[in-house]
């Protein structure tokens, strides 16, 4: 299987990739690429103002602000009293692929000694170096690295707690996906909103929740953010961190996060609301409903489709006939990007661009991050259905290892500094674990509390009547 649905907008193929391609061709016994035959056309060679080349790359418009129509129907300045009286923006650029390499592999069903199994065929090549980070300082790159280490250390600790029977229920891991969870959330501003899925524990850390919160959730303790009423990453914070708690039903966050943008718009604010969905979750009807609503209303939804190639035990080709989930964006009239989800700088760049677009009133963006779920669906699942070679390919793309190599090559961190950082992260996690374990189990009578809000909260819009504000 080669991912080949998206239009080719890569300006020039790096030599390394050409070499990789020929390896892949050999491995696949034929030309590996069935990518779009369209040749890239440099933006400068486009006829100015005239007809657009049929299938060339499209350039980002510098300003995605929608034109707004006043009562007279002409383009006017935004009218804060009626912020919705606007026309839909013309999206002149809809697709960007930031990747340095394309995935080429086959996953087939085979009979293996009377059992149906999957066989993966592809070239197990090393990954290219990470892209140069855009808009990130040295300190920020190091900070992202540290969040990724913390994300992984947290999950290792959760595994320990599980083995010691201190976790109630299962544990879900984002192993191999830390770069995506962390770098995407890292791009959010303080007034933006997010809603994690179960594997995005890293995003919760970045958004300011201490690791103990996640541990207490898994251990069902009294002081967990939900007080023992729900587990895992199913918690949030409306007031300060602007995090919406997910529910288990996949896809349902998408219209909800669109609604968050709508609620903020009614208060005169254009914000970004980020959420994540898997290659499985994107098959739901509500994915379509939510994304379409966001598109029609031009809401700043930043939807990151984490295509980790498996949904529990179901491989991508049993979810959908397309290979690049990003091309769905075309059908909603919204821009899309594909990134290598194991390259945190690509993820950051795409997320940042999408967030800027949202802030400028430019509507939603779909970002497909290609990566791999490196463990089973949850701790109980040994994922025997995943071919070993597939894991081997992706182990070379471990996001933490890739970033570590990059930071060393840059001489921004040396071995000693990294060791030091790992130790600091480890002791932070141990301290967090101790704090989490100090929390008791919840008192039984709490089971009956809080079904209704009987005046315990005072929900009201914070920004109505205070004039327009930009996040």
């Amino acid at each position, binding site marked *: 299987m080669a991912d080949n649905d998206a239009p080719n907008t890569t300006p020039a193929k790096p030599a390394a990739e050409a070499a990789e391609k020929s390896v892949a061709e050999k491995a696949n016994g034929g030309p590996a690429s069935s990518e779009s035959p369209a040749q890239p056309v440099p933006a400068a060679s486009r006829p100015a103002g005239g007809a657009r080349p049929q299938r060339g790359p499209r350039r980002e418009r510098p300003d995605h602000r929608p034109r707004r129509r006043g009562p007279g129907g002409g383009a006017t300045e935004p009218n804060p*009293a*009626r*912020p*919705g*009286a606007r026309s839909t923006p013309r999206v002149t650029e809809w697709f960007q692929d930031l990747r340095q390499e394309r995935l080429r592999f086959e996953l087939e069903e085979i009979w293996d000694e009377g059992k149906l199994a999957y066989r993966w065929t592809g070239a197990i090549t090393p990954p290219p170096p990470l892209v140069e980070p855009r808009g990130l300082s040295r300190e920020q790159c190091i900070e992202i690295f540290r969040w990724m280490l913390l994300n992984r250390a947290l999950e290792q600790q959760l595994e320990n707690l599980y083995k010691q029977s201190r976790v109630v229920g299962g544990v879900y891991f984002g192993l191999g996906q830390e770069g995506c969870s962390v770098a995407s959330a890292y791009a959010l501003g303080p007034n933006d909103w997010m809603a994690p899925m179960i594997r995005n524990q890293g995003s919760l850390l970045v958004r300011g929740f201490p690791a103990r919160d996640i541990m207490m959730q898994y251990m069902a303790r009294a002081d967990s*953010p*939900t007080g023992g*009423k*729900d587990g895992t990453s*199913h*918690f*949030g914070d*409306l007031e300060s961190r602007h995090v*919406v*708690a997910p*529910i*288990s*039903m996949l896809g*349902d966050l*998408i*219209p*909800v*996060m*669109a*609604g*968050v*943008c*709508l*609620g*903020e*718009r*009614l*208060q005169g604010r254009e914000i970004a*609301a980020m959420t994540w969905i898997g290659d499985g979750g994107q098959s739901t*009807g*509500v994915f*379509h*409903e*939510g994304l*379409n*609503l966001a598109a*029609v*209303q031009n809401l700043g939804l930043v939807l990151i489709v984490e295509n980790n190639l498996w949904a529990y035990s179901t491989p991508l080709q049993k979810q959908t006939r397309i290979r690049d989930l990003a091309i769905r964006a075309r059908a909603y009239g919204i821009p899309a990007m594909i990134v290598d989800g194991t390259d945190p700088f690509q993820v950051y760049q795409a997320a940042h661009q999408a967030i800027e677009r949202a802030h400028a009133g430019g509507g939603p963006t779909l970002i497909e991050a290609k990566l791999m779920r490196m463990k089973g669906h949850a701790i109980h699942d040994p994922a025997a259905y995943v071919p070993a070679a597939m894991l081997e390919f992706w182990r070379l793309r471990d996001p933490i290892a890739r970033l570590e190599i990059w930071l060393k090559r840059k001489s921004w961190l040396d071995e000693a500094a990294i060791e030091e950082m790992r130790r600091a992260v480890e002791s932070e996690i141990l301290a967090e674990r101790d704090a989490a374990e100090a929390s008791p189990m919840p008192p039984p009578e709490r089971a009956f509390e*809080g*079904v*209704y*809000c*009987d*005046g*315990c*909260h005072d*929900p*009201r*819009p*914070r920004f*109505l*009547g205070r004039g327009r504000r930009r996040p």
Partner: protein
Amino acid sequence: MQLTYVEAIRLALEEEMRRDPAVFLLGEDIGVYGGAFKATAGLIDEFGPVRVMDTPLAESALVGAAIGAAYTGMRPVAEFQFMDFIACAYNQIVNFAAKSHYRWQAPVPIVLRGPAGGGVHGGPFHSQNPEMHFVHTPGLKVVEPATAVDAKGLLKSAIRDNNPVIFLEHKFLYRRVKEEVPEGEHLAPLGKARVARPGRDLSVITYGAMVPLALEVADRLAGEGLELEVLDLRTLLPLDVEGMLASARRTSKVLILHEDTRTGGLAGEITALLQEHAYEDLDGPILRLTAADTPVPFSPPLEEAFLPSAARLAEMVKQLARY
């Protein structure tokens, strides 16, 4: 002001939108068209297309967007073109909205309103009474007014409530009920039943379009010397247990009447409550008159056979009165 039931709904929306800039409307065809039943007629002209937002034809997105906006402190009122379509948004309501405050202390002040109920030959998909799907869901409130005064008063209270409220408007009553409706700050409390007609002999506990039916039968039987008390529940979740018990104790005989189908209908729950709390006070069996356990049929003679009738109610009441 003389208003129909649906005009009272519209007035409540208008007043609440004027009073509180956090209130806004979303739904299918509610803008320029003013809604399939004109419950939002003209509101887009006063409040603009953002506060009166036409959505795509997608009920999960409709409710999801309402929930998200509520998280930012807004008070969305989402219209279902027909309440039958609420099934399409079941997951958003039951799993997202209803559990939000319990799970993570995030209130969801939304109202999901629209026309429910039969008697207008709407067939299986435009006549249903979906209340029990939601009465069985902790975290929701379920409301159904029977009069224009309550349509206004309950809707205003629902909008101000901090919880997700399923607001069932009975389409049979939309234009058949017309009465004097107070302007301005008239609120009817959620969770409180209303004695629609006091009487000493027997209580008919009911709601929605069955209230006028019960009143009609009560008037007729008064001529025969039988005084019925008609209790209009108004809120189905949470039930006004005290109000029901008080009525049962006054008359010592109870018949429960609803337009919803029988098995798993509200009558079963009310019967259980009365047995638990008022067994000693009752002088006869608790009876129920409901629609049949079938989908709502389309053809008029079929639908009439399906629905509870005044004749059947009078018959059962007389039977119960003999105890």
